[in-house]
C-alpha cells in the first residue's frame, strides 16, 4: 500500500526543503494521504493509543529523573520528596506509575486484537515479531522502573526476578552476580537499573519506528482480514478519517487513565512498596505487578526451578513463531467459527492464569481432609502426624498438614490427613498446559480441520453489503 508518493510541495520553501530533506513528504505519505482500510473498527485505535502512552511515559519519566536519586540510602526518600515537595510531583509520579499499567492494558488489547483478526499472518510476520519485541522491552522497562522507588516490593521483586537467572546451570551464579554488581541486590543494581530504565524507552521508540515502517509496507490488516484490492473503493485517507477516530479513542482511553490517576492512584499498586526496602526481611506475600501475573503463575506451576524459568520465557517465545504455527488460510476470526470460540477460551485462560499468579500457590480451591487431632504445641501435632503416617504408610510431608488456629485466644495446632486437595498450583498447571496447547496444537490443527465461512469479495463489500458494492461500481 506504500504506493507512489502523492505529496506536492505547496510553496517555494517546502519545495526547497523537499529537494534537500523530504521530511514533510514522509509525514504526508505516512500520516495524511496514507490509505487505511475503510472498515477499521475501534480495536484499531490502540496503535495510536500506545504511541500516546509511550510519549506520556517518556515525558513524565524525564521530569521525574530530574528529582529522583538512584542511591539505596536516598531513593525511597527522593520518591517521597517528589510526592510531597516537588510542584505537581504527585501528579507526575501518579501519571508515570499508572501510565505503565495503562500502557499494558493497551498493549494487551492491541495484541489480542492481532490474535483475533489474524494480523500476524503473512505478509505481516515481521510486523508481528517487532511487536512482540516491543512487548518484551516494555516488560523489561517496567521491571527496571518498579525497582527504582526502592520499596519492599521493588527490592524483593528485583531479587526474585534476578534469581531466575540463577537457575541456569553452571553460569547461573556468575550471571547473577554480574547483574547485581555484588552478591545481592544492592546499590550497584539500583544504579544500573536506573540507567537502563532511562535507556529502554528509547529502544522501544526505535523498534516502534520499525514496527510502523513494516506496517506501512504491508498495509494494515482489517476486521475482514482480506487485502485491499481497489484503494479507491476499499480505503480512506489516514487524515482526517483515522486521525479523528484515533483521537476519539485516545480521549476515551484518557478518561480511564484519569480515573486511576485522580481517584484510585494506588489501586493497581502494592501497599508494601510504601515500606522502604529491607534486605533482611521479605514481605509475607510477594506478587509482581498485575501485567506480569500470568507468566508468574506459569513460573510457579512447574515444580522444577529451571523448568519453570524456561517455560515462562517459552510462554512469550511461542508468540515469535506464531505466524508459522497458524495453518489457516483465512485471517479474521470473523470467518473462522471454531477459532473464534477458542480465542475467547484462551483469553479467559490468560485472565485466570493472572488470577492464579496473585494467589498463594498452596491455597486450596477445593479438597477434603480428615482431622487427626488438636494439640497445644507444634511438636505434639508433628508427632501425631508422624505416627499416623507410619501406620497408614503415607508420607508425613505430602499427605498431612498441621495448621495453626486461634480458638478463644489460645493457639492450637490442628493435624489432619489431606485426602484430596486441588490448589492454585494444580489449577495453574492445567491452565499452563492449555496455554501451550492453544499455540502448539490448536493453531496448526484448527487451520486444517476448520471450514471457514465464505469471505466477502472485497473490503468495500464487507462494509456496504454485496448489492450496494455492485451498485457503487
Amino acid at each position: 500500500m506504500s504506493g507512489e508518493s502523492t505529496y506536492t510541495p505547496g510553496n517555494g520553501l517546502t519545495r526547497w526543503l523537499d529537494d534537500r530533506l523530504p521530511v514533510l513528504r514522509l509525514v504526508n505519505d505516512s500520516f495524511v494521504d496514507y490509505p487505511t482500510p475503510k472498515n477499521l473498527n475501534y480495536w484499531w485505535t490502540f496503535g495510536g493509543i500506545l504511541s500516546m502512552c509511550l510519549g506520556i511515559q517518556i515525558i513524565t519519566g524525564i521530569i521525574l529523573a530530574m528529582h529522583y536519586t538512584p542511591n539505596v540510602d536516598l531513593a525511597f526518600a527522593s520518591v517521597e520528596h517528589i510526592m510531597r515537595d516537588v510542584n505537581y510531583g504527585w501528579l507526575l509520579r501518579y501519571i508515570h506509575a499508572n501510565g505503565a499499567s495503562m500502557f499494558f492494558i493497551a498493549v494487551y488489547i492491541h495484541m489480542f486484537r492481532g490474535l483475533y483478526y489474524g494480523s500476524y499472518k503473512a505478509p505481516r510476520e515481521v510486523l508481528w515479531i517487532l511487536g512482540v519485541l516491543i512487548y518484551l522491552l516494555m516488560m523489561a522497562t517496567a521491571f527496571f522502573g518498579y525497582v527504582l522507588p526502592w520499596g519492599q516490593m521493588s527490592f524483593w521483586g528485583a531479587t526474585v526476578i534476578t534469581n531466575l537467572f540463577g537457575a541456569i546451570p553452571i553460569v547461573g551464579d556468575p550471571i547473577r552476580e554480574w547483574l547485581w554488581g555484588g552478591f545481592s541486590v544492592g546499590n550497584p543494581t539500583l544504579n544500573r537499573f536506573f540507567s537502563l530504565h532511562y535507556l529502554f524507552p528509547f529502544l522501544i521508540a526505535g523498534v516502534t519506528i520499525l514496527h510502523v515502517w513494516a506496517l506501512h509496507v504491508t498495509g494494515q490488516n482489517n476486521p475482514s482480514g482480506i487485502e485491499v484490492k481497489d484503494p479507491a473503493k476499499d480505503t480512506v485517507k489516514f487524515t482526517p478519517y483515522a486521525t479523528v477516530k484515533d483521537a476519539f479513542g485516545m480521549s476515551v482511553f484518557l478518561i480511564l487513565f484519569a480515573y486511576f490517576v485522580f481517584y484510585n492512584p494506588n489501586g493497581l499498586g502494592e501497599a508494601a512498596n510504601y515500606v522502604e526496602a529491607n534486605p533482611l526481611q521479605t514481605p509475607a506475600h510477594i506478587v509482581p505487578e498485575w501485567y506480569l501475573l500470568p507468566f508468574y503463575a506459569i513460573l510457579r506451576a512447574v515444580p522444577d526451578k529451571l523448568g519453570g524459568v524456561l517455560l515462562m520465557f517459552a510462554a512469550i517465545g511461542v508468540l515469535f513463531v506464531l505466524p508459522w504455527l497458524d495453518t489457516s488460510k483465512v485471517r479474521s476470526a470473523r470467518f473462522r467459527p471454531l477459532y473464534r470460540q477458542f480465542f475467547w477460551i484462551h483469553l479467559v485462560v490468560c485472565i485466570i492464569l493472572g488470577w492464579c499468579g496473585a494467589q498463594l500457590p498452596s491455597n486450596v480451591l477445593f479438597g477434603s481432609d480428615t482431622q487427626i487431632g488438636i494439640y497445644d504445641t507444634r511438636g505434639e501435632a508433628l508427632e501425631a502426624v508422624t505416627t499416623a503416617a507410619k501406620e497408614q504408610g503415607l508420607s508425613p510431608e505430602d499427605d498431612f498438614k498441621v495448621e495453626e488456629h486461634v480458638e478463644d485466644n489460645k493457639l492450637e495446632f490442628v493435624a489432619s490427613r489431606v485426602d484430596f486437595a486441588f490448589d492454585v498450583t494444580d489449577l495453574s498447571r492445567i491452565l499452563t498446559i492449555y496455554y501451550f496447547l492453544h499455540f502448539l496444537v490448536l493453531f496448526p490443527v484448527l487451520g486444517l480441520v476448520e471450514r471457514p465461512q465464505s469471505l466477502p469479495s472485497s473490503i468495500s463489500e464487507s462494509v456496504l453489503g454485496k448489492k450496494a458494492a455492485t451498485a457503487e461500481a
Partner: protein
Amino acid sequence: MADTHVEEPTRRDFLYVATGSFAAVGAAFAVWPLIDQMNPDASVLALASIEVDISNVPVGQQITAKWRGKPVFIRHRTEEEIKAAENVDVSSLPDPQTDAERLKKDPEGTLERPWLVVIGICTHLGCVPLSYAGEYDGWFCPCHGSVYDTSGRIRKGPAPLNLEVPPYEFLSDTKIKIG
C-alpha cells in the same frame, strides 16, 4: 586480470580475512571492559569478611548478621532442636546432608553442635525465610512455601537445596569470622 577467476584464494583475500579477524578480536577485547564493569567492584569485594561476637546469643535464640548484603542466621540451638536435626533419615532428604556436615569445629577441634550458621536466603528465588516457623520449626519461606528444618535443610517445597552454609570459622568460643 585473467587470474581473478582462479578458485585459489588470492593474496588480497588473505589480507581481507586477516584484517577482519584482527578487527573482530580487537572489538571483542574492547567490549570486555564494558561487560566486566558490571561485575562486583573492588569496594564490594572488600566487604567480603566480617567478625561476629556470639557470646550474648542465649540458647534457643538466633541473631542475623549482614554479610555481603545478605542476612546470615547464627542460631544457638536448643538440645531439642539439635536432636530433631540429628534424628533424620538423611537418605530421605531432597539434598542429603547430615547435621554434622553443616557445622564447624571450634579451635580445640570439638564440633560446635549448638551453633548453626546459614545464609538466610531461600535457595529457590532468594527470599529471606521466616525463623522458627514452618512444620519443622526451622525456617519457612513465605514466598513459595519452602520449609527448612533446624539444620537449615530443605524438607518441603520448591527450593532445590539446603540453606547455604557460608565459609566461616570459630576464632574462639565466642567469636566467629564469616567469609
